[in-house]
């Protein structure tokens, strides 16, 4: 019987188990050492593994990522923590130009097995620079994998898979879920395969494609619709690149209606790409236009009132699903 952990504890357990298993795995980032990380994700790890493997760094996101890349070229599997996903822009060049292109420009001879952990997302009162969802920047760049777990189970299993993966993986861990998402986690070596979506709720009348902190409000909305006689299928993408096309298409073929929900902004968010691909390849299966519930094209404000005005929630998803079902 698997034990219950919070999402945050599940992330830590994945790192701890992988570091015990493989001496080539280490963690580096700001405040990850004895302090245990800004959110406590690496708490206790410096004590177990020593500061040579749980490395406090200067405030230098570019050098944190670059150092991880350099060590990975000598067979290490570094986990680089960005204190907030918002700060990943400071390490952007090393990710998109150094890591993402490495294999391609080496004719397939070289891999960059790094994980960049990026605590992302709003609804935590973080304001403009502690709330961002920058996943689309990395989905857009060939040569990277992008994952975004929504449950403790996936937080652990996907991180283990990311650490073992030979490609650079950007791991978006949603801060809202850190202590709120709690549940069973896989034991030991069980991983969650990168590239596989999970069907969180089965349904026949409409499909919701979502991920991260939006999975829970999507499930709430699906329950409400069920009371109205509409059965909604909720797909948790889990991996954003490469996204699980087969699972998406299978659900669309079943329901013929699709709503995409994400906390990232609307314009050129993942929803735009998914929508285009569905229209290109499964147009004849659609009975209604694809709809999106997303953050508006704006920044994440500090005020609770302003942030609530922006965040997708169960009410907005419910309303969109009603319209979609009635179309």
């Amino acid at each position, binding site marked *: 019987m698997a034990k219950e952990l919070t999402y945050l504890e599940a992330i830590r357990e994945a790192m701890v188990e992988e570091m015990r298993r493989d001496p080539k795995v*280490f963690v580096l980032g700001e405040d990850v050492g004895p302090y245990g990380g800004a959110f406590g994700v690496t708490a206790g790890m410096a004590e177990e593994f020593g500061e*040579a493997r749980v490395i406090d*760094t*200067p405030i*230098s996101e*570019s*050098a944190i*990522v*670059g*150092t*991880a*890349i*350099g*060590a*990975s*070229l*000598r*067979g*290490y599997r*570094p986990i680089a923590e960005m204190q907030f996903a918002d700060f990943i822009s400071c390490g952007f*060049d*090393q990710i998109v*130009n*150094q890591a993402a*292109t490495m*294999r*391609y*420009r*080496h*004719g*397939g*001879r*070289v*891999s960059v097995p790094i994980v960049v952990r990026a605590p992302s997302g709003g609804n935590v009162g973080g304001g403009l620079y502690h709330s961002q969802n920058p996943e689309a920047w990395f989905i857009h760049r*060939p*040569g990277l*994998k992008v994952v975004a777990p929504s449950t403790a189970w996936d937080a652990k299993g996907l991180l283990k898979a990311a650490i073992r*993966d*030979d*490609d650079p993986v950007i791991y978006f861990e949603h801060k809202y879920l850190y202590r709120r998402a709690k549940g069973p986690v896989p034991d030991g070596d069980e991983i969650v395969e990168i590239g596989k979506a999970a069907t969180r709720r089965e349904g026949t009348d409409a499909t919701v494609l979502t991920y991260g902190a939006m999975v829970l409000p999507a499930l709430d909305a699906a329950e409400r619709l069920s009371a109205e006689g509409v059965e909604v299928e909720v797909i948790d993408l889990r991996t954003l690149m490469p996204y699980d096309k087969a699972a998406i298409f299978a659900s669309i073929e079943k329901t013929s209606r699709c709503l995409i929900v994400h906390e990232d902004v609307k314009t050129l968010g993942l929803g735009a790409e998914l929508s285009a691909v569905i229209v290109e390849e499964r147009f004849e299966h659609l009975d209604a236009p694809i709809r999106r519930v997303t953050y508006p094209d704006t920044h994440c404000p500090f005020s609770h009132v302003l942030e609530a005005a922006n965040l997708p929630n169960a009410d907005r998803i419910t309303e969109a699903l009603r319209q979609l079902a009635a179309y």
Partner: protein
Amino acid sequence: MPPIKRTKFKLSPEQLLEMYYWLKHIRAFDERLSALVKQGRVRSGVYTGIGQEAIIVGTCYGLRREDYICPLHRDLGAFLMKGVSSRTMMAQMLAKSAGLSKGRDSALHSGVPELGIFGNTSMLGANLPVAVGLALSYKIEKVDHVVVAYFGEGASNVGDFHEALNMAGVMKLPVLFICENNQYAYSVPLEKSMAIDDVADRARGYGFDGVAINGNDVLAVYQSTQGALARARAGDGPTLIECKTYRWHGHSEHDKAFYRTQEEVAMWRSRDPITTFTTYLTGMNVLTDEHIQEVDARITADIDDAIAFAMDAPDPDPADAVTDLLAT
């Protein structure tokens, strides 16, 4: 002509002649590449290091296979000295499938891990954080190999330079930061991009030594490098060596470099690292005219062979434009 100092790190006549060979080989390779550009045989991306060869030879000579280098776009010679064949490098420059990147990128954006060569991107200074990571791996393993990372004086104004040197200093890593100060960042002269005279001074802010040396004196470069390598291997951390030099050609082969005066170029050409070293070696009776001719013939034959090989090599398979993006 600047004087050449005797080095405290002893070099045999054979070793001196090997250095001479590499200076000449690297110069000849770049000159032939430059000619190929003029003939329209190379698409783009040729940044010669003509005039700067003493830096590469003085730093790479005697490195271990396990020592990692992180060279720049002008440092093709470092690839050759580390063991990549002229054929492979020429195929790389001609975008053939036999090149390091299978024709996907020209220039030096493709490394060879098994020979300890990192291939940087076009983002100058972006190799320095990677050099820190490579050096960290040596420190973790408690081995005495060293990383030799190159950058221009222009790249010392990039944020990555600061982050990388600071982290290397904090972690006391076995890494040498070699500045190829050729006076110009493309067209922008030193005085427009730095308010100090010596890049070497910047090392002080990171807690390790920086020295400014004559980068056109191969023995001076070798001596400084050997001292810094010994300190790094002993666990005494990084050193910044600023090698003052000059690139004879423009930034790229397409740059006519009108921003420099003929007098300035002529002055630096008179400080040619190869002529200087040749004079020194002949004066020491280490090098003879006969030997010079033999070396020249050997180099010409090698590069002729490389060009013939690369010209005859097949173009990449168009299908490879979208492969090798991910391992799995």
